């Protein structure tokens, strides 16, 4: 498990329990500190519509990366026709470099289970699935222990808190490509099929798992629901930024360390980068200037240092060609070459695409080839324009968000690091000395 970073004590904690909380799967100690209080209040004293209203009023937006308003999703799922509905917790954690969702499931399994129960109560579902990576054996073990204990205690199961309402929750280990984390793909996996995205609409809230209304949420979204029901929507709305309140888990990686932190949304990037910079740096790692910050994981965008005041928030990041994505923030110092990094990320995204549609199968592949050409010093004179054209075509014609976002490493590199790109493109040199472009030398007398 990745280390948790120390954050300022003034930052509120919604998702992660206190560091000394003891065994997270121990139901007794969890209920003593308030687990399942919110569920009890909800099923005894609130109508499902009131729960939906509370979530809507909190202004919460989904933590899966896109930041879709959670309340709107719940309203759609609650009003969808059908007696059989599902709740799916997306704990897949697609980015191999990010452990946030897994860590949350390990440290606060009951919060996720309770959040699922509240969501199921609000939309009228009787079944829930938690999707996790098949190689996360410890996470699966803890989750199964927690579900077993909660069922035994009557918080979920055939008779939830003596109300006669039935709710079954199951863990489903899956493991596949990056885009298996996308919700329509994940639903395909839960149906026992090959993971490929579906056209939307219809959205999963109308026709999802087995063509029934399904609420798919990131585990962080679900884990915050009990807090909201417990302490009220207004308290939650007061945390973080106005446009998207609450806290989010980020996976930071910088020269001074790496780890997971729970941060209020809207915190400037500079502050977040500061958590893994300065202070802890030893002698062996001399001070190096920050060259770029990669925000959003493999399909993230590169931001230059002068954009470090951008708040870490869904819309603000999207406006500067990055995104929250997997919650990863990676600091690249002057040893790294942006073209080389862009090449690596574009290649990874192309490799991980599902192949269902042409922008996915061919568009990402061609983009990766263009960036490859630039990096190895064999570009065609039109390659920069070609890449920009291709990227905008892929964005315009993509079926799922994976292809759309897969263009970000290349387009953000072109937008902010054009000079470095031009060195590769026009002069066949790599200023960072990372790539080995074929330098064109004119033979002369020695």
């Amino acid at each position, binding site marked *: 498990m990745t280390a948790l970073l120390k954050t300022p004590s003034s930052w509120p904690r919604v998702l992660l329990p206190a560091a000394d909380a003891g065994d997270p799967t121990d139901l007794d100690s969890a209920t003593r500190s308030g687990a399942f209080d919110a569920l009890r209040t909800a099923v005894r004293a609130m109508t499902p519509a009131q729960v939906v209203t509370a979530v809507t009023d909190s202004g919460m937006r989904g933590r899966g990366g896109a930041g879709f308003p959670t309340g709107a999703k719940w309203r759609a799922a609650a009003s969808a026709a059908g007696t059989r509905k599902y709740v799916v917790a997306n704990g897949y954690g697609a980015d191999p470099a990010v452990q946030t969702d897994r860590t949350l499931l390990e440290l606060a399994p009951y919060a996720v289970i309770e959040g699922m129960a509240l969501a199921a109560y609000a939309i009228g579902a009787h079944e829930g699935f938690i999707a996790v990576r098949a190689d996360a054996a410890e996470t699966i073990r803890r989750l199964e222990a927690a579900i077993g204990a909660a069922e035994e205690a009557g918080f979920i199961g055939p008779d939830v808190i003596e109300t006669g309402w039935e709710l079954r929750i199951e863990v*489903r280990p*899956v493991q596949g490509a990056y885009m298996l984390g996308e919700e329509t793909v994940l639903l395909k996996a*839960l149906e*026992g099929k090959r993971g490929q995205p579906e056209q939307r609409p219809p959205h999963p809230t109308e026709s999802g798992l087995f063509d029934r209304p399904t609420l798919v949420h990131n585990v962080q979204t679900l884990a915050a629901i009990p807090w909201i029901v417990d302490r009220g929507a207004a308290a939650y709305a007061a945390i973080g930024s106005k446009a998207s309140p609450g806290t989010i888990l980020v996976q930071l990686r910088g020269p001074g360390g790496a780890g997971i932190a729970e941060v209020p949304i809207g915190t400037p990037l500079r502050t977040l980068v500061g958590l893994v910079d300065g202070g802890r740096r030893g002698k062996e790692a001399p001070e190096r200037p920050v060259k770029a910050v990669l925000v959003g994981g*493999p399909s993230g965008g590169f931001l230059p240092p002068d954009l470090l005041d951008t708040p870490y928030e869904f819309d603000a990041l999207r406006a500067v060609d990055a995104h929250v994505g997997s919650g990863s923030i990676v600091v690249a110092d002057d040893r*790294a070459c942006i073209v*080389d990094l862009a090449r690596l990320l574009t290649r*990874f995204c192309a490799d991980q695409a599902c192949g269902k549609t042409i922008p996915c199968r061919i568009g990402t592949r061609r983009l990766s080839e263009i960036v*490859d050409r630039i990096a190895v010093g064999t570009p065609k004179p039109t390659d920069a324009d070609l890449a920009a054209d291709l990227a905008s075509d892929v964005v315009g014609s993509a079926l799922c968000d994976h292809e759309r976002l897969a263009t970000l490493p290349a387009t953000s590199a072109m937008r902010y690091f054009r000079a470095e790109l031009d060195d590769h493109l026009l002069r066949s040199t790599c200023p960072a000395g990372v*790539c080995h472009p074929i330098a064109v030398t004119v033979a002369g007398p020695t």
Partner: protein
Amino acid sequence: MSFVPGLGLVRGMALTLRRFFEPKVTNLYPEIPARVPPKFRGRLQLLYDEYGTLKCETCFQCAQACPVECIDMGGVDTKGRFAIHWGPPETYGERREESALRRAGRTVPDPVYEHFHGIDLRAVDDILHEVDHDPKEMLRILAAIQAEYGYVPVAALKRVSQSTGAWYAMLYGTATYYDHLAVGAPRSTEGDADAAYLGALDGSLSGRSASTDSQAAGT
């Protein structure tokens, strides 16, 4: 026979001389095109996947689409229940593989691939029984098979296809899609895309080119 110097040459020349007076068989292509029967579409052949398993699913799409209706085929559905057919009625009720092969005129085993190996299928049957042969539980079935055999044998996939009604081709697509399942043979640790990506990211951040690692080897 005793060795007569020059006899081979004489024999060869004799053949040449005989051919000289026979009617010609070569065409003056392209001036004179060959005469091909109007419905001729080349030789039909059914392909095998890399495990030596017939790819044809008896889906009839080729038979339906064939513009000259030269394909007919018959077989039973994947659960062995209904005899289905396309083409003249004598093809009713045949086992689909035999039928498809016979209809195609010849078997075309690909010498590169070995036929998949038989395994003891009792464990597969138990697993299937447990989930009531429900194709919706496919991932659970496949994961249980993986746990039982250490990989997902092609013979097991065939059995699962037969007894759940899921088409083998779809099932093959599903099983090979997921990284926690190893189809055909136990997985080797190399070729793990996530690990390769993480290694390359480390390298690239510290100033070593990602181009020298295996990620880029395919270019």
